[in-house]
Every structure is written in structure tokens, then in C-alpha cells.
């Protein structure tokens, strides 16, 4: 078996007295699709921000395929292959859908040049059912389409090995959801790209993620298949209320 792709060790973040991430440790293997679930306020988005360099760690270490990412700025982390999406899709509204896709490809300085980028963009637009909107400004897109575009823009980074998707399915219509699931499955199959998917949509998590990690109060409380973790008393308690485990 290949070595681990992502190694996060003892990742810690404090906001004053609140410990948002308390020595979070997580390992992903290449090609894995992992779910990250947990009640609201458990620290999932903080963990995503720490992994991708949008917030600074107070303690801990993060590496991707053996190369240390700890303390690097967000753009360098993305360039080294750890790419994220945001809960509220951040697209460049005044740029065309195609330009939104080409930017990350060109920023990576891909040797294939613009032609290869165009071809890759066409392929993603087709899978993402956004072809007919390619030349439109991204401002015309619906919330769900923006989420698709944001994901596709991440898929344009040639060096990307791990995608961290923060609530990609929240508040988007079922058709767009299916398209996004298809895109994720396809990228995972064809290029062996790994995913860490933060989501509350258990049906989708069950379908996409053989394993999930559960975060409760800033810690990883359980790991395993969704059915396994769902039986753990501390998980049940965290979701259904009562005193935390």
C-alpha cells in the first residue's frame, strides 16, 4: 500500500478561551474519499481553514505526500496540490465561466499551455452541464451552478491531489447535487484524486465516502464506516443532544 497522502498531526487552533481544534489528527491515503461529519460548531470549517492555509495553526503539523505544508500561505498550499472549495461558493462574478476555469490552470504554469487548459475546461464544462454558459459572466449562475463552477475550477489545477470540499451540497437543488456527485466520482476514478468532504447530507456521504471521520467539540471522536460511527454512543449523543461525551 502506498504511503499516506495527507497527514495532519495534533492540529490545534484556539480563539481566546475556545479550543476550536484540539490536537486533530487525520490521515488520508491516495485516492481516498473521506467524509468529515459532525454537529454544527464542531470545528470542521476551522479544520478546513487550517489545512488550506486560510488560518494559522497554533500547534501541529500538516503534510501532503510527505512534503510539509505547515505555515505555508494558502496559494502555495493550493499550488502543491491541496485545493479547497468554500461553503459559500467564491467565483469571480465578472469573469466568464470559462475564464474562471482557466485562471487556476494558467496560474499553475502548466507546460501544456492554453490549448490543454481549454480542452480540460471543455471536458469539465460538459460533465458539469455548464457548457452553454461558458461565455457568460459567472454572475448569471445559480447558487448550485456556482458551487459546480467552484469545484470545476479546483479540478483545473493539474497538480491537485486532495480536494477539501466544505459543505458542497448545502442548499443546492437535487439535479445539481447529482451532477456534483458525478464530477467527484469521475475525478476520483480517472485521476485517483482524493477528497475530504465536509457534509451534513448523510445519504450522499454514505454513497461517496467509504470512511468518515466525526468531529465533536474540536476533536476527532470517531473514524470508520458511516454505520460504524453511527453506533458509537458519543456520536449519537452529540447529534441527538444531551451532555457531550
Amino acid at each position, binding site marked *: 500500500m502506498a504511503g499516506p497522502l495527507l497527514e495532519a498531526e495534533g492540529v490545534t487552533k484556539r480563539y481566546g478561551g475556545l479550543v476550536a481544534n484540539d490536537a486533530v489528527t487525520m490521515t488520508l491515503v491516495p485516492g481516498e474519499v473521506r467524509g468529515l461529519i459532525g454537529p454544527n460548531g464542531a470545528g470542521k470549517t476551522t479544520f478546513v481553514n487550517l489545512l488550506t492555509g486560510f488560518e494559522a495553526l497554533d500547534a501541529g503539523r500538516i503534510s501532503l505526500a510527505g512534503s510539509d505544508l505547515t505555515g505555508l500561505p494558502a496559494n502555495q498550499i493550493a499550488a502543491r496540490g491541496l485545493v479547497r472549495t468554500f461553503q459559500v461558493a467564491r467565483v469571480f462574478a465578472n469573469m466568464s465561466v470559462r475564464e474562471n476555469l482557466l*485562471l487556476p490552470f494558467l*496560474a499553475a504554469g502548466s507546460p501544456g499551455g492554453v490549448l490543454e487548459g481549454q480542452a480540460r475546461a471543455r471536458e469539465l464544462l460538459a460533465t458539469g452541464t455548464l457548457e452553454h454558459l461558458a461565455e457568460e459572466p459567472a454572475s448569471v449562475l445559480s447558487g448550485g451552478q456556482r458551487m459546480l463552477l467552484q469545484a470545476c475550477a479546483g479540478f483545473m489545477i493539474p497538480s491537485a491531489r486532495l480536494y477539501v470540499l466544505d459543505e458542497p451540497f448545502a442548499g443546492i437543488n437535487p439535479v445539481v447535487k447529482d451532477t456534483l456527485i458525478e464530477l467527484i466520482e469521475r475525478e476520483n476514478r480517472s485521476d485517483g484524486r482524493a477528497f475530504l468532504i465536509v457534509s451534513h447530507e448523510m445519504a450522499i456521504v454514505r454513497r461517496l465516502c467509504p470512511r468518515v471521520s466525526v468531529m465533536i467539540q474540536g476533536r476527532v471522536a470517531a473514524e470508520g464506516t458511516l454505520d460504524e460511527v453511527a453506533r458509537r454512543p458519543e456520536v449519537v449523543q452529540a447529534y441527538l443532544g444531551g451532555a457531550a461525551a
Partner: protein
Amino acid sequence: MIFSAELLVQTVLSGLMVGVLYALMALGITFIYSIVKTINWAMGEFYMIGSYIQFVAVHHLLGARWWWLAALISTAGTFLVGLILEPILIKPMYARPMQRRDDYATVVTIALLLLLRSLAVALGGPNQYRPESDLPVVWIGPLPQEGARVAAFVCALLALATFWIVIKKTWVGLALRAAAQNRVAVQTSGVDVYRLDAIAFAIGVALAGLAGALLAPLFMVFPTNGAVTTVKGFEIIVIGGLGSIPGALVGGLLLGLVESLGAAFISSPYQNVYGFLLVILVLIIRPNGLFGERGRET
């Protein structure tokens, strides 16, 4: 005052000519603001640097014939100065977590203004210089126009076209447009937003440097020669709307026209007043400027 069609045409022409050069300044200010999110008060000092380089290049090195090469050198020179200064002076405000960072950055540009002016006095004295120009008078129909003015106008148009091509057709332009819209998201694309800041700052001040070089034979070279054009630049920003590139262009032309027409048909000593009247009018009718957005995005 005598009204004649010829005078009107000539006035409109000269207003448009100077307006395009004002627009260069305004474009520089608005472009830097839209990416770096800092108002650069030292714009006029980069205009001044451009004019000094132009003078030294034409008077001491190349001769009047090579004014266009000197203008290219002035533009490249101010670009380089901007590229070197931005990471030292502006970036630290944005790279560290701190409050009111744009205010600090703005104050730094005011300090830079004083520093550069004092440097100019120290190096060249308070004297006025003028690079020679051997460009012949250009006749547009029956109307004579100063050669240097026509040349400045043409070069400014070329610079605007080049700017447009860089922004619309190159990947750096694509990245700059993206950064102007969302500084956070552009980092997820793997783009180094601080490097873009330096490039944007350098491009912006290079536009001012070019304006300074082109106007040097008309408006002279001295330590505070950028002050007036900076004020014009900011007038245009108010007219056109902060952060709007079309606003900078249209605002520049409008200001040039209003000043020129006012000077010719009302009274020339009050030339600067007409521009301010236009500013006040725009503030009353459209407080965000002709092309300005209603709210600020963070």
C-alpha cells in the same frame, strides 16, 4: 470673448488631448485601488519621477529625437521603482493580521510622497527643467496643435490600448481581474496575491510615470510637478467612480473638456475651478461617480 466654430473645435481637441493624459493618472490610481485596496497618494511623485527620467534621458543622453525611447525608459523606470517599493512599504500592512490596514497603507503612501519630493529637491534642486522637443506643430485642418501635445496624446492612447490588451488578453491580466473581485478566492487558484499587488502597483505608477514623461516638455520638470495632476486624478476618480476603469477614462476626458472649454469661453485664470464645479455636480447627482458601484465589497 469671441465665439467661433474654429475656436470651439480647437478647444475641444486640446481638452480631449489633455483629458487622455489625466485619464492615465486616474487609471493608475483606480487600478491600484481596485487590486491593492490602497489609495496611493504618492501618484504625483511617480509622475514626477517619470518626468525627471525623461529630462535626463532626453537632455543628457539621447537627444530630442529619441523622446519616444526616453518615454519608454521613463515608464519602465517608474514600473521598476513601484515593483521594488510595494513589497517594502505596502505589503507589510496586508501580510500581517492588523486592524485598519488600508488606513496605515494610505498613510505610508503620504510619507512616500514627502520622501520622494525631498529626494527630488536634494538631487535636482528646486529648479525647473524642460526636456527639448523638436516636434513640429501639427495642423489639424486650419488648426495648429503643439507637436509635443499631439505626441503625448497619441502615446497615451497607445498606452491605454496596451493596458487594455494586458488586462483582457493575458493571464496576468486575468489574475489581476480575479484579484480585484475576490482576494481570498484567487489564492485558492494557486495565485500569489501579494505578487499581484506588487505588479498592480507597478503598472499603476508606471502609467503616472508615462504621463509625467509625455507632459514634461509642456508642463516642465520640478519636484512638485505631480501635485496638480494628482489632484486632477482624484477629481476624475470622484467623477468616474472609484475602482472603475471606464470611469477613469470617461472622467478624464470630461475633465479635460470642461477645463478647456471653460478656459476658452468663460475665463482662463479659473481653469481649475471648472473641474471642481464638475466634481460638485457629479457628487450632487451621482455620489458614487458615473460608473461607481453602490456599495463597497470586502
